[in-house]
C-alpha cells in the first residue's frame, strides 16, 4: 500500500495497463503535451510516445468515433473527456454505436473502449459544467457505468474497465482528484465491475451514496453514531450493471433505506434503487425509502446557491432520522 491522491491512482492505473497491454492507448484533448486538463495523464507522453498518447483536435464526437473504430478492430482506447459535460456532443457515438454494435453484429464486433473524465458538481463550475452525467448513460443497455469514490477504487476500477470487453463510462470528479488514500501498488490489483462495497457496517439503516456524497454520508454516520444510530454505508461503485444483491442484502439487515445522490432527483439513481428494493424486498422495509437529491434545477454559479442545491449533511441526517422514526433526535 502507498498513500496517494485519487489523481495519482488513476495515473498509475493507466500507466500499468499501458505497460501490460500494447493495445491500450489514450486519446483526447490535451492529454499529451499538456498532460490532461486535470493532469491525470501526467508523464504518459514521455513514457509511451505520441502513438499511444494522442492529442486530438477539439471534436468530442469525432475522437469518440475514432476510438470506437479502433476498438472495433481490437485496440483498447481510453478516451478522455475534458469534463463529462462535453460527452453529450459524443452521445450519438456512445449510445448508437458503442453500446449497440456488439448486439447488432450478433457478437461479431465488440467495443472495448473506456470513456473517462470528471463529472458531477465541483466548485463553482456553473450549470453547464457541474452535471451528474451518469444519468445520461446508465439508462442505455450495452454500457457499463462506473463512479469510483476512493483512490483505491479509482485505480482498481479503471484497470478493470480497461480490461473489460464492453464500452465503459468512467466518471471521476474534479473535487476528488486531490483526495488522498491508500492504494495497492501491486500491478495485478483490480476491483471487479458490478460489485458494490459496504464502506461502514451498521444495523439500523442503510445509506447508499457514491463520490462526494459518500464522504458526506460518512461524516453523517459518524455524527449519528453519537446519537446511537447505527448507519450502514453502501457504495455501488458500478451503477450499471448494479450490484442489487449487496444492496438488497443490506436492506434485509437494516430494514430502512436512504439513497443520496448529487444530481437532480427526477428519474435519478435513487428512483431506480427505490424501485428495485420495493420490488424485491418490500416486506423487509420498515419505512418508505427516502431519497436525498440535488434540487431539480440547473446548478447555480454562486457559491452559496451551489451549496444549497447539493444535498447537505443536515438534509442527509434528517432523512436518516426520519426513516428511523427518530425525528426529534
Amino acid at each position, binding site marked *: 500500500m502507498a498513500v496517494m491522491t485519487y489523481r495519482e491512482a488513476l495515473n498509475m492505473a493507466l500507466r500499468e495497463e499501458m505497460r501490460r497491454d500494447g493495445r491500450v492507448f489514450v486519446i483526447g484533448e490535451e492529454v499529451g503535451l499538456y498532460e490532461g486538463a486535470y493532469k491525470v495523464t501526467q508523464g504518459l507522453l514521455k513514457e509511451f510516445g505520441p502513438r499511444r498518447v494522442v492529442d486530438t*483536435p477539439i471534436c468530442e464526437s*469525432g475522437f469518440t468515433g475514432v476510438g470506437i473504430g479502433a476498438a*472495433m478492430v481490437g485496440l483498447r482506447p481510453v478516451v478522455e473527456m475534458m469534463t463529462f459535460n462535453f460527452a453529450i456532443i459524443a452521445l450519438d457515438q456512445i449510445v448508437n*454505436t458503442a453500446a449497440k454494435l456488439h448486439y447488432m453484429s*450478433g457478437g461479431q464486433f465488440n467495443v472495448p473502449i473506456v470513456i473517462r473524465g470528471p463529472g458531477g458538481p465541483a466548485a463553482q463550475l456553473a450549470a453547464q459544467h457541474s452535471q451528474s452525467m451518469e444519468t445520461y448513460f446508465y439508462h442505455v443497455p450495452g454500457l457499463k457505468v462506473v463512479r469510483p469514490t476512493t483512490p483505491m477504487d479509482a485505480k482498481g476500477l479503471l484497470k478493470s474497465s480497461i480490461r473489460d470487453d464492453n464500452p465503459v463510462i468512467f466518471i471521476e470528479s474534479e473535487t476528488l482528484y486531490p483526495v488522498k488514500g491508500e492504494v495497492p501498488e501491486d500491478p495485478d490489483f483490480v476491483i471487479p465491475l458490478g460489485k458494490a462495497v459496504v464502506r461502514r457496517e451498521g444495523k439500523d439503516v442503510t445509506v447508499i451514496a457514491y463520490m462526494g456524497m459518500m464522504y458526506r454520508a460518512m461524516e453523517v454516520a459518524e455524527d449519528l453514531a453519537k446519537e446511537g444510530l447505527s448507519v450502514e454505508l453502501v457504495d455501488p461503485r458500478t451503477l450499471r450493471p448494479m450490484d442489487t444483491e449487496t444492496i438488497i442484502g443490506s436492506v434485509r439487515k437494516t430494514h430502512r433505506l436512504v439513497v443520496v445522490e448529487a444530481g437532480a432527483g427526477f428519474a435519478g439513481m435513487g428512483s431506480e434503487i427505490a424501485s428495485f428494493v420495493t420490488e424485491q424486498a418490500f416486506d423487509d422495509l420498515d419505512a418508505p425509502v427516502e431519497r436525498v437529491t440535488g434540487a431539480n434545477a440547473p446548478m447555480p454559479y454562486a457559491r452559496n446557491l451551489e451549496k444549497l442545491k447539493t444535498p447537505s449533511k443536515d438534509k442527509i441526517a434528517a432523512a436518516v432520522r426520519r426513516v428511523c422514526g427518530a425525528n426529534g433526535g
Partner: protein
Amino acid sequence: MPRTVLEPRFHLEHLSILDSEGHLDTALEPKLSPEELKSLYRAMVLGRRLDERMVRLQRQGRIGTFAPIKGQEASQMGSAFALRPTDWMVPSFREAAAMVWRGWPIEKLLLFFAGYVEGGQPAPGQRDLPITIPVATQLPHAVGLAYAAQYRGDDAVVMVFFGDGATSEGDFHEALNFAGVWQVPVVFVCQNNQWAISVPLKKQTHSKTIAQKALAYGVPGVQVDGNDILAVYAAAREAVDRARAADGPTLIECVTYRLGMHTTADDPTKYRSEEEVKMWEQKDPLTRFTAYLKERNLLDPGLEQQVDDEIGEAVRRFEATPPADPRTVFDHVYAEMPPHLRAQREELARRLEEAGTPPPPEPAAAPPRATPMRGQRLTRR
C-alpha cells in the same frame, strides 16, 4: 498593404473516361483485364437484379424497408473494386452491390432487412463493418480503423461510403479533419446521388462541389462521373494506392443519381420531376458499361439468368430461416451476460416453455470474430 493571393492554390479535377454517348478517353482508360472487366460487370448486374428483386420482396411484405441502389452501381462497384480483401470497407446503408461483392452472402442481406441479427454479422475474417443507419457516424469509425491499421503496421486501407446529405453532418467534417491531420489511409467515397430524401443538393450545401470540401482539410478531393465505372475505378485505384503508400486520405465525390426511391417507404414523385429522372436514365451506368463490353466482345449471354438463379437460391435459403427466437433479445447486449439479463432470459424461457414453445437454446455463442488485425509488424507512428 496589398492583397496577396495565398499559396497553395487549390486544385480540383473532374474525371470522366467513358461518357453516356459512348466516347472513351483511351489515354485515361484503366488497365483492367478481360476477367476483371467481366467480374465488375457481373457485380453490377447482380446489384441491379438484386435491387429489383428486393423491392418486390419488400412490396410482398417478405422483407422490411431498405434503401435501393438503382443507378448507383458504378459509383459503389468502381470504388470497392479497388480494394483488397484485407482492406476494410465501411458502408452506409446504400451499398448492397459493393457489400455482396465484398462477400456478404445475399441471404444475410435479406436477413438483415427482415430484422435478423445474423444479417449484421460479417463472415469470420471478413473486413467489413455492418450497415450504418445514423447518417455519417461511420466516418469517424473508418478513421479509427485506419488509425488502428497504422498503429499495428498493417498496410490495410479503409474505404468509407456515405451520401451527399451526410456531408452536412459534423461527423463528416471531424473525420476528414482527423484523417488530414493524421494522414491515415482512408478513402472517403461520397455517393452524391443529388438527393437526401426530399432535400436536393443545392439545399444541402452552397458549395459547387462536394470534392472541394476536402481541400479545407488539406486532403485531396476529386469529382468523378459516378455513372462511369472506368472513371470511378481509376479515381479509387489512385486513392487506394496513395493511402497504401502512406500518402494519406482522399475524398472522392461520385456524381450519380438515385433512380429509385430513397427507401421503400418513400414516393419520390412527390418532390422531383419525371424529366429529371428521365434525363438521368439516359446516363444509366449499366447501359454505358454494357456497350463498352459489347464492343470488346466480353458480354456473356447467360449472365442475367445466372445472376437471377443465384439470387433465387439465396431467397429460398432466406425464406427457409425459422423466425427469430425471442430468447435471443438478451444475447450480445454485453460481451458477457450480466446477472440481470440472465435472469430475464431464464424467466422468458420458462414462460415460453409453459406455453409449449420448444426448449431454449443456450445463449447464442458468438461466431469467430471479424477482427483480424493481428500479428502484423509494429512500425511507423
